């Protein structure tokens, strides 16, 4: 448990330290495409979250834990 938290915190710190990485504002054309968004299709993501919440013991990760139904 502590190890999970530690790895998580380190990943976040590592990324906030990456101030030299990235692109200039005019180089965001590819990143602006719909298919490059972190969640491309909201409904598909919500559907998968719901199915796997109902059939497995894990949930969430990308966003909130989901649930809110009597399926599990």
């Amino acid at each position, binding site marked *: 448990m502590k190890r999970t938290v530690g790895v998580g915190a380190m*990943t976040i710190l590592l990324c906030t330290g990456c101030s030299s*990485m990235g692109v200039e504002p005019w180089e965001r054309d590819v990143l602006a495409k719909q298919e490059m968004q*972190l969640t491309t*299709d909201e*409904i598909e993501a919500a559907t998968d979250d719901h199915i796997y919440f109902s059939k497995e013991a*894990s949930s969430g990760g990308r966003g*909130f834990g989901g649930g809110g139904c009597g399926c599990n």
Partner: protein
Amino acid sequence: MSQKETHSISVALAAATCTLLGSGISATVDAQEEPAWDFNTSLLYYGEDGDRVKDFSVSAIARRMFIDDRYLTLGLTIDGLTGATPSGAIRQDVAQTFTRPSGNAAYSVAAGVLPLDDTFKDTRLALTAGWQQPVGDTSQVSVGASASKEYDYLHLGVNAKFARDFNQRNTTVSAGIALSMDSLDPVGGAPAPFSPMLDVGDTSNRLGDQDKDVLDIVLGVSQVISRDLVVQANYSYSKSDGYLTDPYKVLSLVDGTSGDTLLRSIAPGVDGPSHQFLFESRPGERTKHSIFGQAKYYMNGKVLDASYRYMSDDWEIDSHTVDLRYRIPFGANRYLEPHLRFYTQTDAEFYRLSIPDSLPLPGHASADYRLGNFDAITAGLKYGWRTRNDNEMSVRIEGYRQTGSVPADQLIGNQVSRDNFPDLNAIIVQFGYRF
């Protein structure tokens, strides 16, 4: 003025403008009003094999954009569920009879067949609402609420998230919190934990309504690595309190040597269970930690989406999830997207195949396969295309397969030779339309 006369005004104006401005060649105007509303809709079919769960679902998300990047989002989902689900009782070489969760009737399962409870014909309605807006130049806040209702379950929830950009929007750090207040009113009433399954009409072991509260916290960071690569990492904490037991699931009470379910004597003229079953009992608390990482990589038009999640909780369940999607465009208007997902989890500390009568009753126990030891794989293909009026349609077909096993040290006597863990095979078909 006739149509022809009035139209000539714009022609004459164009000519006069040309004379005035000279040779500064301009292109023909291309202006379109952006619709205020954006819709994302879907039709879903989920079907497990045999007599097991089938679900039809209709979803819609409507988003309205206001000036300065403010959004209102409304979501609706309607689910219709039928089919049977494993009750937690093990299969036997003889027929078994069970009392339905309502307590009003009984059902039988043939010898050698995995006991499935088919009581669940349920409809669920879920609503969500959210508001998102910028805060200053570099931050964004969103708040939302959710509610869902099915026959035996009510969910109410609120959530909020704050995100801040750094490094010219290359780095975004976010923190979110969600609170759920759910209440259960199981068909027939929630049974007391570890109480026996009783005769039809006997509800003396029933408790009243139950509550369950969940707190979720998500901390995340996303980082643009290059023009073609963006990554994200999240840490999630989830704490559930209250009634976490499944009120419809049981465990078979078995003989400590043979592993066969103990028989039960029923009074003449009475309907009831043929064998002895105990309702399951789960802890009143659950704390989960997850870390999640995702990368999206653009390779000359194709996009690879890869993510990994590790989850660990105080029920001693550990899981790993790897999800891969690869989008391949065909021309400007179509794409194919194969999808692969690998999942594995270890069983909960209190997962039991059955309860042997030779041992003292454990603190908690559940035979719910969803808390067991299994691997799962999903393989699917999605096809998407742009319609004539510039909207998007898609269809995806996926197969989901779970294969698990019961830890060897839990198998007793005749159980060893049987196929104990209920494998799952399901097909998922989803149509999507965005406009």
